[in-house]
């Protein structure tokens, strides 16, 4: 099975959807199902890293895709996440069928591509699709803001890519990496400007402070579709791209590493503080996900690809269900203030189970996946002899724990007054939608628990350096 189909088929679906508007949503559903099935098959049949040549011209001359453990992780989870989002929020897709198919193609392209300019093109497609998806929110000012910041960011990214081309004479990532490895001193002064530009460009999509100012406006009133897409699918793809460039291609050191680390750590601290001070569900969650981006970037920058990917997976999978549930609650109740939603889960436990397990996993309660991800990251940092960063991460973990527990206790605990008001407001919640979200939530909860147990059992003993191999080894060893 050629991975190129993961990009070509959704694109074809989108083009048919443009020509025949009536069957657009059917095509979108088919593309999502096809991609999920194809990603599963590719994962099962995956043997060793391979380069997929496009157009019959060998790299570095032609554009090529790279399928290795890292991009396979991305492809598998991305298509699974997208299929789940479509399952839960299909009714919001009415006008957006073609745009969403293109989004699927673009996200797969971002993760798979092995060429810097091609990466820029896919990021641009993804970004434009994101602007359009966020116009579903009533207030267009935030979308406009996002568009301006995003275009500036991708322009800077392109600038960086071109500078790298003038330095190395190639756009292929693997070729560039080997040319750099061949040069006597890998981190040279000439690389600083292009790397800063690439970092600034990627920081917009990965939501780092101060480039992520658009997030709050776009997401605070997001419907379940927009919110879960931006926070999980887009964040996942963007951070994987970040890891590809700054974790794998360029191994940073010196002042540049310090500067980028400070940006990431500042993002982590400030966003956790903001999340703690918010009282509405979606704002808390969005700041929490900015903080997690900061953490993941921090880990990637400090050469810990596997821990970073584990934290990233734990975060996006949890955020998927958290954002969908809170978006649906907000739709049903007209508000997402935590205090006014008291007892919501008491009445609809099906929604609550997935939400609760996802939140507990994020806090890092043992046995859940989030725990082993965090443990992995911390032990890797300690292994490097680094003490400041783990301290910061642990402290922020405590802050995170406090606000998630606060949310959970409010939503589960029905005060006498709270229960009745929630009851009235939730009266119109359609049972079918509730059941779908509940079941998806349960499935995700099951995955979080089992992945947590499996990865914990092989903790420290596995020599794997990507997620797919880790899971395979763990399953084989049991």
């Amino acid at each position: 099975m050629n991975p190129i189909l993961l990009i070509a088929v959704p694109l074809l679906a989108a083009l048919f959807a443009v020509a025949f508007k009536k069957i657009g949503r059917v095509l979108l559903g088919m593309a999502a199902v096809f991609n999920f099935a194809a990603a599963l098959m590719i994962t099962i049949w995956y043997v060793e890293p391979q380069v997929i040549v496009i157009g019959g011209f060998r790299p570095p001359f032609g554009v090529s895709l790279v399928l290795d453990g890292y991009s396979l992780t991305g492809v598998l989870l991305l298509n699974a996440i997208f299929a789940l989002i479509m399952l839960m929020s299909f009714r919001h897709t009415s006008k957006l069928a073609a745009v969403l198919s293109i989004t699927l193609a673009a996200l797969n392209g971002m993760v798979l591509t092995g060429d810097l300019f091609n990466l820029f093109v896919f990021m641009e497609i993804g970004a434009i699709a994101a602007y359009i998806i966020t116009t579903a929110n009533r207030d267009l000012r935030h979308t406009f803001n996002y568009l301006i910041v995003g275009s500036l960011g991708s322009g800077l990214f392109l600038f960086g890519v071109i500078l790298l081309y003038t330095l190395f004479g190639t756009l292929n990532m693997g070729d560039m990496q080997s040319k750099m490895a061949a040069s006597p001193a890998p981190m040279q002064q000439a690389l600083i400007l292009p790397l800063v530009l690439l970092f600034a460009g990627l920081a917009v999509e990965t939501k780092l402070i101060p480039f992520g100012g658009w997030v709050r406006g776009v997401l605070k009133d997001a419907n379940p579709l927009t919110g879960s897409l931006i926070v999980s699918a887009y964040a996942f793809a963007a951070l994987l791209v970040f890891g590809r460039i700054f974790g794998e291609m360029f191994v940073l050191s010196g002042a540049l590493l310090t500067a980028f680390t400070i940006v990431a750590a500042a993002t982590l601290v400030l966003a956790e503080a903001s999340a703690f001070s918010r009282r509405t569900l979606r704002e808390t969650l969005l700041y929490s996900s900015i903080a997690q981006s900061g953490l993941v970037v921090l880990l990637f920058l400090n050469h810990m690809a596997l821990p970073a990917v584990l934290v990233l997976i734990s975060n996006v999978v949890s955020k998927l269900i958290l954002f969908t549930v809170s978006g649906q609650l907000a739709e049903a109740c007209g508000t997402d203030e935590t205090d006014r939603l008291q007892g919501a889960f008491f009445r609809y436990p099906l929604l609550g189970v997935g939400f609760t397990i996802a939140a507990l996993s994020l806090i890092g309660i043992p046995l859940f996946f989030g725990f082993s991800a965090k443990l992995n990251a911390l032990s890797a940092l300690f292994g490097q002899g680094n003490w400041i960063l783990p301290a910061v991460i642990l402290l922020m973990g405590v802050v995170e724990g406090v606000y998630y527990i606060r949310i959970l206790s409010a939503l589960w605990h029905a005060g006498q007054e709270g229960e009745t008001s929630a009851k009235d407001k939730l009266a119109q919640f359609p049972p079918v939608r509730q059941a779908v979200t509940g079941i998806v939530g349960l499935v995700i909860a099951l995955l979080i628990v089992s992945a947590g147990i499996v990865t914990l059992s092989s903790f420290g003993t596995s020599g794997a350096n990507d997620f797919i191999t880790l899971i395979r080894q763990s399953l084989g060893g049991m």
Partner: protein
Amino acid sequence: MKKFISLLLIACLGAFIFISLYFPGGGTLAFPYYGDVDLNGRVSQAYIDKSVNGPNDVVVYGESTDEESGSANMVTSIVVDYRSFDTLGEVTVLLVSTLGVGILLGGKRKRLEYKHAPNFILKHGARLTFGLLVVFGVYMFAHGHLTPGGGFPGGSIIAAAILLLYLADDEFRVKLAGIKIAEGTAGSLYVIIGLAGLATGGYFLYNFLPNGTVGKLFSAGIIPIVYALIGLKVGSEISGAIDGFATEEVAE
């Protein structure tokens, strides 16, 4: 105050860029100065020699046959052959942004009114020019592998011809349903040609037709076909966007 800070920021950024580009601080890597570029260190030399898949003799216009990419215009051979996948992405960018324009400026619409109604000569003169412009646009993408131009400018010229009709006649509108079908069909044919390459040659977007002699009109394999499709697609997409901008929502 904000302006001052921005100015300071820009000055710092500018100084940073200029110093990094033009005052290299040692090391083996340095940016080449303007004009002092050596193509032998870049992948581009292989595009010029058409020697990507192995060494090749000097390519001669009108004589060399069956090169790996049969286009006389090297930019075209990069755009549609060597890096065709980027072009597919680029077409998708335009598709998704015009979809966005359609969502934002959609619904039941009518033309914006002009203060002065266009007169007879203007309307009919524009129709005549329209024909000429469309022919020129078609020429542009049909000769994209030989002369400067190609699918994007060709399609844009067709869109410009339609823009002319919009400007000259305040009642003219394109049929949006037809536009959508043209754009969807052209785009999906591009992807299908790519998949056909996958089926016949084993590579997506593989150039599976004979390349012919460099410099002949019927040469370069799938390049003219793809450029024609791109031209059609770009033309219809931009026309659709123009329609969105030249109309306003009808108040119900």
